[in-house]
């Protein structure tokens, strides 16, 4: 853990995460997450999957899936995953993942490349259908899909039918947040 004295701001520019509720759905900015990408080295794919499984304590997620509990991973591309963990305990997640993966994978810090919003409550599909092309019928618990929301490339993760996480690129977060909130106001 570092002991530096720089104070972080959230992607939306606040010192506290932004929370907004419309109807029965709440949108919460989630800065407390550390992310690293893990991409298997050529020819090391199965070893990498095993190492990842060990890291997250659960089999490496398959295509379009998430897995894990304290540390979770979701599928991001062929032989590539994102590892998520609480920021408080895993700020240096890239180092931790690098150690865990050894020579089997290339690890890249992604913590601040992305910003997460959690949508919780009832009626989320009505919001998401105004935002992205994903077939929500096929998104069940543990689904992870990349898609475009108002021209912003995002990940949509279904934790449960009442909790979805949306990851969008940090710099475009204002646009993404505006899109989510207007869709909530429109649909709910």
């Amino acid at each position: 853990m570092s002991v530096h004295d720089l104070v972080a701001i959230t992607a939306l520019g606040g010192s506290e995460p932004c929370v907004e509720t419309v109807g029965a759905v709440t949108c919460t900015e989630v800065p407390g997450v550390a992310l690293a990408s893990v991409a298997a080295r050529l020819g090391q794919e199965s070893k990498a999957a095993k190492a990842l499984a060990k890291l997250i304590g659960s089999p490496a997620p398959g295509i379009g899936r998430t897995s894990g509990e304290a540390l979770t991973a979701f599928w991001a591309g062929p032989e590539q995953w994102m590892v998520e963990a609480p920021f408080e305990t895993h700020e240096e997640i890239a180092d931790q993942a690098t150690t865990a993966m050894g020579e089997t994978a290339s690890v890249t810090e992604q913590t601040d490349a992305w910003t997460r919003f959690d949508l919780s409550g009832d009626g989320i599909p009505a919001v998401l259908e105004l935002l992205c092309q994903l077939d929500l019928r096929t998104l069940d618990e543990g689904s992870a899909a990349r898609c475009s929301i108002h021209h912003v490339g995002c990940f949509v993760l279904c934790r449960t039918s009442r909790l979805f996480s949306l990851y969008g690129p940090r710099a475009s977060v204002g646009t993404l947040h505006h899109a989510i909130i207007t869709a909530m106001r429109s649909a709910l």
Partner: protein
Amino acid sequence: MTQTNRLSGGQIDRNTTLNFRFDNRSYTAHSGDTLASALLANGVRMIGRSFKYHRPRGVLTAGSEEPNGIVELRTGNRKEPNTRATTTEMFDGLEAQSQNRWPSLKYDALAVNDLFSNFLSAGFYYKTFMWPAAFWEKLYEPMIRRAAGLGSLSMEDDPDEYDKGFRHCDLLIIGSGPSGLMAALTAGRAGADVILADEDFALGGRLNSETFTLGDHSASDWAAQAVAELSALPNVRLMPRTTVIGAFDHGVYGAVERTGDHLPTLPAAKPRQILWRIYTKRALLCAGATERPIAFENNDRPGIMMAGALRSYANRFAVTASERVAIFTNNDDGHRTAADMHAKGVKIAAVVDVRDDAPTSHDYEVLRGAQVTDTKGRHGLTFVEVALADGTTRTLDCGALGVSGGWNPNVHLTCHQRGRPAWNEALAAFVPGPDLPVGLSVAGAANGVMSTHGALQSGAEEAAQLLELSGALPDLPKAEDAPVAQKPFWCVEGCKRAWLDQQNDVTVKDVKLSYQEGFRSVEHLKRYTTLGMATDQGKTSNMGGLAIMAEVAGKSIPETGTTIFRPPYTPVPIGTFAGRMRGQEFHPTRLTPSHYWAKERGAVFVEVGNWLRAQWFPLPGETHWRESVDREVRQTRASVGVCDCTTLGKIDVQGTDAAAFLNRIYANGFAKLAVGKTRYGLMLREDGIAMDDGTAGRLAEDHFVVTTTTANAANVYRHMEFVRQCLCPDMDVQLISTTEAWAQYAVAGPNARKLLQKIVDPEFDISNEGFPFMACGNITVCGGLRARLFRISFSGELAFEIAVPARYGDALMRRLMTEGEEFAVVPYGTEALGVMRIEKGHAAGNELNGTTTALNLGMGRMVSKKKDSIGSTLSEREALNEPDALRMVGIKPVDADHKITAGGHLMNTEGPVDAAHDQGYVTSAAYSPSLNSSIGLGFLKNGGNRLGEQMRLVSPVTDLTVEVEIVSAHFVDPEGERVRA
């Protein structure tokens, strides 16, 4: 005003009275009315004027095929021109205006055109208005343009919001008449995910307009029951007020839901309309049929309507267009209108049936073998003239005439992928052809199945077949099953001014003239006469025009051609297609990590692609941007400045083949770059032209960080993935963008190191020896925060780029500012950045303009011949290597007070100034506070050998000629001593 033409019954809510205004007169209506039904109820027949002759126009139909009854709806910035009264759902406070008339609907000055119609024949304008040539733009065209168009826009920004969304289903059913409802019941009961969409606000299609029964229920009751059952099914989504506008590739349908058009005012944050992209496995078109008119002399007067429409108004809306109605028909359906209206107490003047064997009635007179030959009534029908079978003529007093020429299957959507309808002789109509959009089937009247029983059955059967359902079909209610045969009757013989396209004023005579002049294909006919080009896309007119063309050509209709339709099914507001992507939301906005801080500092921002970047940071008292920019440059060069350069693309390249990969990507070599070092890299496209430049730092043997220009970040990443996956699939390389993960700041100027030493943790040596020019490495700052440091310079000063996780970027910038106070640190923006890079002679976007080669940029020698890199082979083509090829040079005014203009062209001091003598051009220009002179970069033929030469910089478009001197592009510190200090 009372609703004089209101009948009994109907599906309107008489308990709700709504007020509305048309042409500034107040009327009342009921909930469930359309504007058209409400106007008719109030005895208003004339509601508009036609396009060319300004003839009076009333309501023709009761649906979206309406060509005539179009108005300007609402007022102020919500005014909607050309809105169909027939589909406008009544709401309290509705306001509408007639259009294409001046000064009033009743007394319209341009109605005079009708008198001169003989001079305004089809295509007359192609043959005249040519002399004298100058008169076209000065006189003729302004005259024509003034008369153009129908409705007018408010010219104010559309205040409403629109949404766009996506839906998915197993089966999309388009239309909710008998076939659509039965298909939905069949599919819905079987558990399929079904969307049932209908453009009407009431589901049920024509069932709401008919008096026959389905089983033990009236048609509308059966429809209501079916809708109730469907709405209880969780797997069925009903979408009324939703028009499916187009069938696109692979089962994607566009649909427009009018969520707010029926409301007096939109609730806050709610959209007016939603564009749905519906992704279907299968789709079933149940769009019914469109009644077709018969052409006869003066068949366009207000009060002359489609017979089926009259019936709809009577049965559904409890309205008649007149207390006395006549019918002109060639088929039994016309008689149904007469019977229904008679039952409602409307006087039937007579039914004029062209058939000698037409059915008769006890309730009203049927004139067999008769034809309507002319009509009268200036602003609305007063009587019709009928030629009887015995050759005599008769006059029928009537305020409305219902016309039925039979029904055309509504094949619109089946044509959207350029499928052609097929001719059905029994129906004398086009039915869906063999080339339907993949996954689409057609049921009911849209497929030529004209009876109600047939519609129900085909709806159930098609749905079952599309979903591959096994088992018995649901029981069908007993419904009318009259055999339908249509004998064509297109126009009354000898008619001339008989309207086909009532909106555009295309008559039978025009079609004949078109044929006479050789415009004989359907496409030529449409274009020459404008038939079918009106806002209804010719839904009621195309067939008649085609039939008349066939007749004069002596060919059959299918030999003459088919009519096909293009999306959208009905016109769609442009705002709906745009959705939320307008104003500030047109494109995503990307903010840099120091954005909020910069805003506090009063920075002026500029759009750079989707990024907003600080352009300069004005201080109090600075009144002109140049003051701020000059100060930022001077202070950076004198002490130290900080600039947010996060926007540069950053791509993490890892893997055992990472170096080999960069060797392929870059024109220059990277294999031997030492760990802890950074190198400038030039990327070529495969055609040998420079694509992008940047740096690559080697953090480890198998780990590089590549930077790209801000503009090209996405292109370069895509290109690198192409090379990795498609050209070198066995290289062990992994790529990922890290642009936004790191807040990256350039710290530049002689005091840059001193400033950084205050924040870089002491265990890291950043002295010139410990961290020389082009070094790079992982460090920590401020007591342990992980960071990256690159000793690279775009400004030409001693400079570093320092990167920390983006969330700390704001804090780091603030820290640099406080720690830098002792050096009078300045933040600098993109302008100062640009000035300094021009002073240093670094190429940027203006120079890397997609047409320049490494040679042009003065980097020809960087293109390695010893390795395989993208673009190296084609960069050797002869024309790219000619001796007088353009070279990047510096440009200085001879007189320092003069200004260099980017975009100016370079000419020799002597000789003509024209394109043939062009020597080159200026790409970038700036005022250099370091040189106290305007300076520029540019490309000059053989420029490398022309330093010191005087030339003329000409920019006629900015009215400028400047004597300039060609100099080295490196205006500041050409030896590069500062960057190495």
